[in-house]
């Protein structure tokens, strides 16, 4: 991460313009900073749509390389709308990855996990603390959070299973999640 004495605020658009205006590949500092910022955001997009760390890592690499390539080539017309440009790239690559899923599965069967890119594991809450914090929730909050996050189940489907209304599930989920977060991060004792 770039740091200066005053650590000036530089938004993504300013970084994108620096990359676009430099001789291609010469402003390594701006490119590295842009990569550092965009990588975790694109990874989350990938996890949301592909539900797989390996696929999210693939998406992240492809989208960021294509983005930097387009910036270097001056092909991003509105750097101030970089997020929109990256979103378009993400959507396109997700479609490609889904099409290539079967081929990828065959390769994995042939070559195993050695083909998988290395990933930094997401920061996980301390297990013992999380266990204790879950115990402190109400029964309904615990049930809703466990069943929601076990399968990433939307409120409508969970409501049908529990015999509650979707609105009720959302209220319980929100309250439980706020309390769980506060307990895990130590905001409440």
């Amino acid at each position, binding site marked *: 991460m770039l740091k200066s004495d005053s650590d000036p605020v530089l938004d993504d658009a300013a970084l994108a313009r620096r990359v676009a205006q430099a001789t291609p590949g010469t402003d390594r500092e701006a490119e590295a900073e842009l990569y550092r910022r965009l990588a*975790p955001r694109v990874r989350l997009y990938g996890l949301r749509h592909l539900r797989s760390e390996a696929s999210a890592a693939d998406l992240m690499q492809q989208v960021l390389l294509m983005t930097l390539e387009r910036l270097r080539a001056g092909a991003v017309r509105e750097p101030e709308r970089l*997020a929109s440009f990256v979103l378009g790239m993400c959507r396109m690559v997700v479609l490609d990855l889904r099409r290539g899923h079967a081929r990828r599965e065959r390769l994995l069967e042939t070559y195993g996990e050695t083909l998988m890119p290395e990933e930094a594991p997401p920061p996980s809450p301390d297990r013992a603390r999380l266990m204790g914090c879950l115990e402190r929730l109400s029964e309904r909050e615990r049930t809703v959070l466990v069943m929601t996050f076990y399968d990433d189940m939307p409120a409508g489907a969970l409501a049908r299973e529990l015999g509650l209304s979707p609105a009720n599930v959302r209220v319980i989920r929100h309250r439980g999640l706020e309390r769980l977060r506060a307990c895990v991060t130590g905001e409440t004792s």
Partner: protein
Amino acid sequence: MSPSPCTAPIELGTLVAYWLGELDAESESRTEEHLLGCDACSKRLGELVALADGVRTLARAGGAHAVVTDAFVRRLIEQGVHVREYRVPRNGSVNCTVAPEDDIVIARLEAPLGDVKRLDMVEIDFEGRGLARAEDIPFRADSDGVVVTPRIDQLRALPASTTRMRLLAVDARGERVIGEYTFNHTPYGTTR
């Protein structure tokens, strides 16, 4: 060189709804564009995803005591989780244990719940006195009971012992016993 601060943070409820695919297409697109351009909100989503992952991992390893549903248990089994199940009749008992290969233990407490408004579950001693009470547990009135998954680490630590549970229906008039359930636990590989 720092990113710009967020001027319109996405609410937690919206982040959760986004993660679970509950937003309509327009809201999802707007949320994604914001997330791809915002370090602060993206970081909060990352924390939420890590928390969700932690809950999932705990649940899969029997580390979360919770009342669940039959459908949830079926999904666990389909996903390869090793589930040990005990069905306990109303006012009945069961001999139980936890094997080394078990990931999760399930207790099905049979009970008529058709007219129940609120259901409490109480651990009781041999005189019937309450030791610990779980209030307002989730249940389906059209089901034949409740499904409980205790924490497996606590079960594994139990010596040979008997635990008694009571289900209570609670309403404005007071409370009434729906059923009592006795668990005669033996550590795996031993006899009582």
